[in-house]
């Protein structure tokens, strides 16, 4: 993860923390992604807006290596992701990518803090240190650490997911509707946390959101429309 953190902001895509070129994805006969070009440098943030069903979540799934694109290339840091094996993609994700999902996706059988610690434990980090960091993150997001995940509210779950994405200090953070379930005040604090990351850790941040206020905080803004990505024409 280290080589990415130090990369300075740059507009040449070759040195970016995340770059993809002509990414296509087809499921059966439907084309969901139709030649997406995108690049986010370390220390920078980007937001993608777009109509429901336009392919935003699918793009994130491709970028995090959950699914292989039908065509095109995806690079995370120096690594070409689309040719890696499933295991190597999992490794890359664990070490370099933090993920926040549209509907949190927590493991209910674990407590909040255990959920947050998971990525650290999966990458064989020391348990005590991981616990300390998880505690710090949860405190910052105002979530009781030892509460059972099953009883958490939607907003609390979303913030636990956010803490979980940040625990490994990733070089790239991908977030799908991270503020969807939050009230106005929490949305502000959570967005503050997310968008302070590029500056404080040097990571690249890509946020998919329907919320113009959240999108306007990003350095670059894009719009997704039926599988094609274009720079946003709206000024935020």
């Amino acid at each position, binding site marked *: 993860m280290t080589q990415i953190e130090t990369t300075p902001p740059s507009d040449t895509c070759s040195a970016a923390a995340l770059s993809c070129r002509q990414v296509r994805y087809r499921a059966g006969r439907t084309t969901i992604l139709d030649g997406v070009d995108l690049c986010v440098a370390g220390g920078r943030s980007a937001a993608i807006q777009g109509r429901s069903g336009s392919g935003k979540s699918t793009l994130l799934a491709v970028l995090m290596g959950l*699914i292989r694109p039908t065509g095109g290339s995806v690079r995370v840091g120096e690594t070409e992701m689309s040719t890696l094996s*499933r295991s190597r993609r999992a*490794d890359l994700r664990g070490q370099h*990518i933090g993920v926040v999902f549209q509907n949190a996706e927590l493991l209910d059988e674990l407590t909040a803090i255990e959920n947050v610690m998971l990525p650290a434990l*999966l990458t064989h980090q020391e348990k005590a240190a991981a616990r300390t960091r998880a505690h710090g993150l949860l405190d910052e997001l105002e979530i009781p650490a030892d509460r059972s995940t099953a009883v958490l509210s*939607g907003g609390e779950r979303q913030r636990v997911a956010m803490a979980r994405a940040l625990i490994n200090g990733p070089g790239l953070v991908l977030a799908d509707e991270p503020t969807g379930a939050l009230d106005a005040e929490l949305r502000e604090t959570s967005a503050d946390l997310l968008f302070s990351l590029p500056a404080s850790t040097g990571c690249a941040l890509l946020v998919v959101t329907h919320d113009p206020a959240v999108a306007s905080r990003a350095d670059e803004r894009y719009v997704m429309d039926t599988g094609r990505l274009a720079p946003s024409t709206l000024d935020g």
Partner: protein
Amino acid sequence: MTPARIGLTQAVAIAAATALVVLSFAALVLIDTTYDGRYQRSADRTPIVTVDHEIASFRFAHSFSAGPGRKFSVVYLDPLDRAAPPPPGLTQWPQPGTAVVSPSLADRVDEIGVVYGEVVGTVDTSGLVQPTEDLVYAVPAPAMFDGSNWEHAVGFGAANRVNMAGEIWIVEYAERVYYLVLFFLVAPAMALLATAAHLGDEERRRRHAILETLGARPGRLVRLEARRAALPLLTGVAVASGVLTAGSLVDLPLLGAGYWLRSEDFRAAAPALWSVVAGSIVAAICVVLVATRPARVRGARPRGREPRYPGWVAALAAVIVLLTGREAINRVGGSLDEAALWVFGGSMLSLILLPTVCGWLTRTSGALIGELGSRGGHPAMLVAGAQLRSAPRGSARLAAGCAMAVFLVSQIFAMLTLSYAENAVAESTAKPHDGSYVVIGVPRERSMQPALDQIVADLAENLHVVHVATRVREFPNSEIEFPATITGSVAMLEELGLSGLNEVPTEWPWDEVAGSGNPLVTSAGPPTIAVGDDLSSSQMVVIDPAGQLDRSQIQHVLNTVVRPGWSVSIPGDAWRAGALNAVHQSRWIVWFGVIGSSMLMAVVFLRTWQASSLAARRGAPLAAVSGRTGLTVRRAVMRGAVVAATVAVAGGLASYHLSWVVDAGGADGGPVRQTIAVLCLLATVAISGATAHEVYEGRRAVRSWRPGGERS
């Protein structure tokens, strides 16, 4: 259903299933040593025969005593040297005029005492092939005549493994038991383990998806599942090992089979047993790992793979059932084993194809219901149909489990029907002669004539006694005939309607004693010992016209006149013994069947539980949002109806071909058909229970459902 509750249920189920898998594999190994052990114990007590009377330490003779539903071995002993070792299981030779019986005959000591001498003790089980064996050792008191049927022996432990004690060989060939164990124990236990491992599939799939997103490699997920399953697996192995260890220390009864597992058989099998335990652990681990392996990722939303259930497999299954059934019927007249092989092979293939058949039926009827619901605008039908069509696996598995249980149990009943049919025929042949006449085997030695005369004199006045000798006559064209000579006093032959005989009487007992169709001649005079090289059989027939013959009384007379007594029997005894054998075998089949179908029922139960919980959860949002909880009920009922119909079609049809075979085998296939009907009904009841559970869970899920995404 919380993940914790599913996890606990799964752990218990995996532990139990693993124990059953290990034990059922152990059973395969134990068959061999058990059979070897039985041969060995039989050999240990088989006298070592000698022709040199000088060196003999004892004399012996053996015979059977039979009655309705029971047959036991009688071994007459005459110790020539009382210091010589007695047979295994006895500490000393019994005194003359006394008998020792195996523990299982304890309830018949009075009757045995009258015939064989006072019962003074029991044979220790170490001297029995089976602890439940029926065996009498009798040392007869000196009688008027010493019999010629003694054999001389120098000790016990003949190496040539003669099954002299005539223990009823419950299932004669070890190979048959292998099939039973494979079919009724190993296969259902493996199915149970796979089902247990599949519990919580939904939760597991979600867990895998999340962990993989967080950076866990697929191999990591496999290790994770292996660790989750390790404790239950080890617990199951420990339980099974405990049972096996107990079995090698003490004799264990196989409840319901009337059979004891001998500890020495366990000990003899120890090396093989433990290597099989090790092998079955590997098999269990493989089953669990295959069931819990990470799913292939197919798109942004990981979802469970639904099997395809191709229609041509369903058609193929129907053809196989038809063809193998017909083929088995064609072979019923010939070799029974061949017919059985066809039935067995067809059954196995049907069993393998059954899940696909059930899946195809479920999916097709789902499509039909969905179409009807869509045309008529019925939401419950639309939803139920769509669920069955797009995700038929849960319902199809449930139906397949029930259908397999129906199939297995009806298989058992088919075998039972065949065995009991044999038994019924034997009984109906033997019954009319109980009390009418008995046959006494007569030695072929002239020196025994005084003994024969004495016996005739000692028998009650009202009894008719004749001697029947059959001889072999060979014709130049190599045809063979067994002409019989009936010898008796003129008055007796007249009373029996045999004087001046010139045509063959077809009524009893002559057709059975002399063999029907053989020429009969009569000879006036007292019953006489028959000798000669062409002599085929020499029997004395005792007839009571009043039908009040007491077999024990006659045996008692024989024992007081000759030592050892000649043996009394009736034609049909042998047949009856064969039928008894069949009954014993069917008891085994029932035992295996009950265990096997209990495991299958557990499979059905677990799958039902899993499927209905999932369906309830999936249906909750629709019902909660629409405010129509009745929707949950109707949807569940429709699903249940489809499953029940699938069981009836698949299970019923697959089982039905058995009843043809039973019909063709000469037994009444009616009971088999009734059994199949009853089982289908029971399966329907079980499925109704599942539906009720789904309704209950569904209502609960509706009450606790909150908008804001599915939670596990």
